[in-house]
């Protein structure tokens, strides 16, 4: 099993200073901002099924977009994969994607989770939830994102920096629901309620809630699931102590985002790219793709991992996720104005 790896190791090294020519008939060049080790199994399954080999370049989404732009017509990229619709929108505005005409994808991926012109498709769903300290609150203390700005939660909220795309997209969804002025008033109240300077990642917010630094936190659902499923008893204890709220159940639903992908405009292997995207929408791949990061499958009827089953009845915001990208710059500026670092 490991032997070919050892061989390819040597080859990679010798080929380092030579041209990396990866354009070939039976290959697919994937630029991806997802880096879960489990994704490798997915690519292997695709190769076994189609005979198409997957070459991978991982990196930050923004950097990958920039590279595809600069490589221009000669870019080897076939598919760009990333998380968050805000980033997919950025790629789309940079002219990275070409529309894919596939009835399979149109049927299987819900309209709200793909670009209106099929420039990109969402393959998994993640939800931005509110974490709360079960020792402080017997029952969930709030039911809507809007309540995070209420004065009763003064100095209680932990949340990461506004430089993070997840927060930008959440605010973008607030803008879609309430408009800029009202969202700004809300964000201003939220900043007042912050227990500390925004810092760390989503997991750090959960840990802070569990440690008692704040009683409320904001983050994506899967970070909590990861702790709950961890081998480390300390992580499990943290998850045990922190409750999850899927907000706005009585209204528009909880803010959701996607992990998604699209075909690159100058893809040298467009057929392989289409085949790969359709493969990602298959039941088998859906399960694996979403399980890799404890997310919800995008295709209806595909079962998520057991740990997510309890939330299958939750209402999620039906807003087309492409709007999150459209509102992104407004969201960032708004957060700049209220001093959300």
């Amino acid at each position, binding site marked *: 099993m490991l032997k070919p*790896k050892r061989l390819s190791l040597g080859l990679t090294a010798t080929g380092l*200073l030579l041209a*990396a020519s990866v354009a070939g008939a039976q290959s697919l060049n994937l630029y991806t901002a997802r880096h879960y080790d489990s994704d490798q199994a997915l690519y292997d399954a695709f190769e076994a099924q189609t005979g198409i080999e997957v070459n991978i370049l991982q*990196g930050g989404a923004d*950097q990958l977009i920039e*590279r595809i732009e600069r490589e221009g017509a*000669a870019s080897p990229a076939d598919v760009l994969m990333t998380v968050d619709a805000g980033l997919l929108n950025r790629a789309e505005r940079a002219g990275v994607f070409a529309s894919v005409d596939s009835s399979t994808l149109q049927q299987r991926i819900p309209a709200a989770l793909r670009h209106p012109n099929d420039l990109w498709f969402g393959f998994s769903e993640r939800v931005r939830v509110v974490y709360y300290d079960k020792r402080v609150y017997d029952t969930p203390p709030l039911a809507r994102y809007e309540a995070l700005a209420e004065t009763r939660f003064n100095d209680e909220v932990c949340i990461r920096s506004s430089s993070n795309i997840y927060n930008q997209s959440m605010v973008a969804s607030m803008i879609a629901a309430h408009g800029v002025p009202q969202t700004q008033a809300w964000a201003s109240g939220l900043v007042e309620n912050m227990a500390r300077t925004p810092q760390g990642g989503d997991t750090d917010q959960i840990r802070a809630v569990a440690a008692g630094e704040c009683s409320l936190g904001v983050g994506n659902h899967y970070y909590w699931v990861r702790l709950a499923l961890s081998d*480390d008893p300390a992580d499990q204890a943290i998850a045990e102590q922190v409750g999850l709220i899927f907000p706005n159940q009585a209204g528009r639903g909880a803010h959701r985002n996607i992990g998604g992908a699209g075909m690159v405009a100058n893809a040298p292997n467009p057929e392989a790219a289409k085949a790969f995207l359709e493969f990602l929408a298959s039941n088998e791949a859906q399960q694996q793709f979403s399980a890799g990061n404890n997310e919800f499958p995008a295709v209806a009827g595909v079962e998520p991992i057991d740990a997510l089953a309890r939330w299958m009845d939750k209402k999620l915001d039906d807003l087309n996720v492409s709007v999150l990208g459209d509102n*992104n*710059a407004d969201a960032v500026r708004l957060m700049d104005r209220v001093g959300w670092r």
Partner: protein
Amino acid sequence: MAVSTRALPLVTRMALTARRAGIWPVMMGLIALFVALPVLTVMVQLFTPAGEVWSHLASTVLPRYLVNTVGLAVGVGIGVLLIGVGTAWLVVMCRFPGQRIFEWALLLPLAVPTYVIAYAYTDFLQFAGPLQTLLRDVFGWGAGDYWFPPVRSLGGAIALLTLVLYPYVYLLTRAAFLEQSVCVLEVGRTLGRGPWRLFGTVAVPLARPAIAGGTALALMETLNEFGAVQFFAVDTFTTGIYRTWFGLGERTAAAQLAGVLLVFVLLLLLLERVSRGRSQYFHTSSRYRELPRYELLGAKRWLALGACALPVLLGFLVPAALLLQMTLTGGDQRFGWPFVGYVFNSVSLAGIAALAAVGLAVVLSYGVRLSQSPIAVAAVRVSAMGYAIPGAVIAVGILIPLGWVDQRLYRLLSGEWGWEVGLILTGTGIALVYAYLVRFLAVAYNAVQASLTKVTPSMDAASRTLGKTPGGTLRQVHAPIMRGSLLAAGILVFVDVMKELPATIILRPFDFTTLAVRSYELASDERLSQSSTAALAIVVVGVLPVILLSRAMQRSRPGQSGRN
């Protein structure tokens, strides 16, 4: 003479210069241009109107970026000067317990990337981290019952960046102290200077080019820092560049911010130059003997020991131990054969880049020495600017010209000859090595330059009078004197490349992973304990050349080469 040559056309002047100095200045000009290209690409953006986004920035976040950036630079600057120069003097001039160990141990923090020390410490010291949790458990405190210095703050950033950046100052200053002729110091002693005054009035002023060079490196590293300051929740100019670029989607304004940062760095360097005035720093004596050391007694011994032990402990041992602990309890599931590949990739890239950078640095500094023209000096300064630009920005500055050339090559090859070889430069090792040269040439150049400055021109003159060519003079006169500095330059670049992240990520070939990239992949996915394995490997692999460097420098002191 000066007036008459200046009146000549540029080409004639260049030809005249060329005849005087051989092909060195011409080569130098070409190299400088080649390396400066990405920097110039970024600078060009300064002159494109960016619209109203500037007024948004100025009225919201820019003041905070400025205050933080200046605070960070001043704090780290003072910190690295104190630790770097102080410990260098102690280990070179004094005798105290452990002194010979500290000579090399003080370099160890160099192997720890800023982002690694940042996450090791923030994770450990934050409210939810193990230390504060332990304190709360032991004393029964709750949140708000006690005060603990917040690690994610400007102060935390200054302290921890200082701990891994001071070795730049230490390394160059120590080399300078070692290269100082004992005559100068003894003259100082004979004239009645005690150790403190000798340090302050003779040794430090003489070592000034080296001290300035090291501090400049540390400060540039501080200014372009992105990953670590994010961990510390401190918004600097560089954070602003990223946010403006990627968050606001304002590429032009972001490049302009980068340009402003560059101007800031240029001013700093200029200031140092101006304050140095017309003084020159040559060694005119070739008499080197074993340096007479001060024997420290009593409490002084332990103070010296403590002053040297603390930076090593906090800058290397503690973070390495924290990483080791995380690796043992969590750790990377891919540890094994894939890791050998990552190590190989990291080391071979770093090795190639180090050789190339030292080679170019020698040509550049020698070219400057031969031509003595202000244009040459300016060209080199610009080509060394890449160090001050945030990695992701320089990567884009590289992608633009490289992509341009690549597109044309692609069309030529596939159109004219039907060769479907894809892109030759972008996404290959060539692009990576080029990127490292652009980023780290300054590191090699500063070290080589500082050493070359101290060789008196009368040696050049003598050698040339005796019929040696400039190349021959370099090989037979300068190279032996500079050997230690050349090695230092190479290893500094090597270690820097090992740690480099943003440019590597965006420019690397398919399926090509280095240790830094692997560590980033897991850390960016908030799997800190898993990413600790790769981080620890960076540190371990980086430590070996650092120790090597230190030993070689010890031996390379003129007058001591025959003793081993």
